[in-house]
């Protein structure tokens, strides 16, 4: 009941974001969208994912998008023609994704592979094999160690990229132009 009405709200938000031309309103609506998504994750018992969605989607993304709006225009260009190629691409991709969900086990299914495959081994033997009392820690740090290493490398690369882009100092001008060094904020 709650999930259905939240999904309805999310659909309405997405359609309204498509119609609006005022980009400030679109940023606001995308914040609401992420908040609803976070509540759905939470109702489905994925509290950690919900945290991430709320902090990144509703919090930081909104702030970053507002920063972008401050540097660019806040009105969307109106395109009169309908672009059929991208529309077909979106529909096909969406259809493939929906088709992919048909094979997935139902929500809360006790016979799903994630419950029957390796979980019992983690629960029974991880204390002996890894030696860490917390099962989640041993799964993340040992059984899926390479996965975690890759994730860390990706996050590290992203942080370096951001630092390279925004952390660069302004080049000092030559002394003749130093008087005109006022702060020009966009």
């Amino acid at each position, binding site marked *: 009941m*709650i999930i259905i009405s939240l999904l309805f709200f999310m659909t309405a938000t997405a359609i309204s974001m498509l119609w609006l031309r005022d980009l400030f309103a679109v940023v606001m609506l995308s*914040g*609401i969208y992420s908040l*609803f998504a976070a509540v759905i994750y939470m109702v489905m018992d994925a509290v950690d994912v919900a*945290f991430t969605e709320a902090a990144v989607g*509703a919090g930081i993304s909104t702030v970053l998008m507002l920063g972008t*709006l401050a540097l660019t225009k806040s009105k969307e260009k109106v395109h009169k023609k309908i672009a059929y190629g991208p529309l077909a691409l979106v529909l096909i991709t969406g259809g493939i994704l929906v088709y992919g969900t048909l094979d997935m086990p139902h929500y809360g299914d006790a016979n799903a592979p994630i419950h029957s495959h390796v979980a019992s081994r983690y629960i029974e033997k991880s204390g002996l094999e890894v030696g860490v009392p917390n099962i989640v820690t041993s799964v993340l740090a040992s059984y899926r160690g390479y996965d975690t290493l890759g994730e860390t490398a990706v996050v590290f690369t992203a942080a370096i990229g951001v630092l390279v882009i925004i952390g660069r100092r*302004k080049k000092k001008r030559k002394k003749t132009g130093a008087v005109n060094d006022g702060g020009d904020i966009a």
Partner: protein
Amino acid sequence: MMFAAAALGVLVAMALAMFRAFAGPTVFDRILAVNTAGTLTVVLISVYGFLSERPEFLDIALLYALINFIGTVAVTKFVQFQGLGYPVGDHEDGDI
């Protein structure tokens, strides 16, 4: 039963706030609608916690309230100053 009725009421209020966010002619209508939707989300999470007999969800609702607050501060600052950073004049690192 009582919590279910409360959740229903929160959902109805959320629909009204969403309508204001879609239709709202001015910027301030939208800001207020987004803030209201965030607050209603916090209430919905709390009510859902009691509805499913897991009152621990109250902590999560508190965190959502904090995130909502930061977002609203950023938005109002954007509207007031047309940007998120203050001009810092002759600082050599620019606006960061």
